[in-house]
């Protein structure tokens, strides 16, 4: 998956899980848990939404790598 598609998939998934987040205003270094205030259930749903949309199932051991928006986009680019 190229970076543009990965970014689109991440934006769509965050939009579904946290519709109040205005992604135009958010830095890609933002941390999903701390800065976007996703709790563990929100995060699980984010991972699930991305899996459904892109077929990339992020295993739990890789969660630290996808803690930020940028990390998540990078992960999808590498694995998608």
């Amino acid at each position, binding site marked *: 998956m190229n970076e543009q598609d990965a970014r689109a998939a991440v934006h769509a998934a965050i939009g579904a899980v946290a519709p*109040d987040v205005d992604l135009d205003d958010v830095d890609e270094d933002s941390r999903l848990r701390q800065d976007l205030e996703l*709790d*563990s*259930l929100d995060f*699980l*749903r984010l991972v*699930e939404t991305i899996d459904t949309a892109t077929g990339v199932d992020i295993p*739990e051991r890789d969660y630290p790598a996808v803690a930020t928006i940028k990390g998540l986009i990078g992960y999808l680019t590498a694995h998608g």
Partner: protein
Amino acid sequence: MPSLGADMEHGKLVEWLVKPGDYVRRGDLVAVVDTDKTVMDVESFQEGVVADLLVGIGETVPVGTPLAVITQTPAEVGAPVREAPPARAPSKAAGVTPRVPEAPGPEVPGPAAGPPVAPPVRHLAHRLGVDTGSIQGTGRDGAITRADVEHAVAARTGGAGRVRSSPRARRLAAELGIGLSTVTGTGPDGAVTVADVQRAAAGLEGAVPEIPGPELAVPELPAPERPVPELPVTEPTVPAPVTGKPPSEARERVASLRRAIGALMTRSKQTIPHYYLSTTLDLRTAVEWMQSVNAHRPVAGRLVPSALLLKAAALAARDVPEVNGFYDDGGFRPSAAVHLGVAVALRQGGLVAPAIHDADTLPLDVLMEQLRDLVGRARAGRLLRAEMADPTLTVTNLGDLGVDSVYGVIYPPQVAMVGFGRVMEQPWAQNGLLGVRHAAIATLSADHRVSDGLRGGRYLARINELLQEPEHL
């Protein structure tokens, strides 16, 4: 208007999920009510046919106000029975001996040796809530005809003061499920005419959108009539698009939620003598077990630490019943069931604490599924009445968002609040050796009128014990 929580004084009806003439069972969802805190689905407390809706969409009424008239079925039991909302267990109408057994397949001939009834007529009678055993048949061999059923309905909906009406108007009203007593008659001596019934029907149509079912509550009303635009119009697990809401309305909602929380917490702190305890949970085994389970699962089936903590909190409440129940005028009433309230932070601000029913009996996977469902619906503003009304013990899991520990304020009339802090790796000394383990701080805020530190401490210790055998949770 049922009470949807200890702090609720009134509610706004935002949607009817039934219309007059509909047959409802106990527990069927009938209406959507907006409290200061959230939007909730309200179920029927009894079985029967909806004869009349008493509260219009957008009206705010005090708790205890009848919302609808539900006529019992099989019917002809005299005056329509008003829904008695505050009572959890509906009083079965006295003296009603149903002669037609609960027969969902209306084509099945009833075993009653009453007059012959053709299946379509029986179906009509069932739909309108008329007991065919109680009417005189005027057909061949005393058979009951459509007209007999309609007359019975007209007689019933007419009530004591019989409404003058034309036969055609009666027939139409019966077919449309409109109570004649609710129609303003414009005929001779105030008699209800066909035109009056049609007008009434049109009025109802205007107020009650045709809704295929509670799942698909798609509002069709024009904007001014739709007081709650944040009602989810998609599947309930998807949070409402908050961004699409007028900012002023979102602000007002958050403000009213904040007021409701403020009032309840003030009452709690003024009336409940809180005491507070904390302990550190050793989660090494639990987290390792969870990670090994999750490694083999697709994301949809994965567990989160919260699920384990909630299950342990529910199980421990069985062993220390002093933390589980209600305190009211009569003193402490322990609860046999553990309905675990889960404090859910709403993304737009504020929180609600709906219950996972019988959490102590649910297998971990089921509890996890219900937790996800509950949080999703809480955020979307679609909770069930019972979920808001009856938690017996509440857990706040703020640690999920990063704090080390949280000391909650008890939700009256409950008697305890459990708090879980962040699950994190910590240095851990054991047997003279220092290692690193997952751990979290559990706290208990409890009511001194009911328990003291010794029992409270036992409760927290029991949670820790249970978490050492996660495979048995």
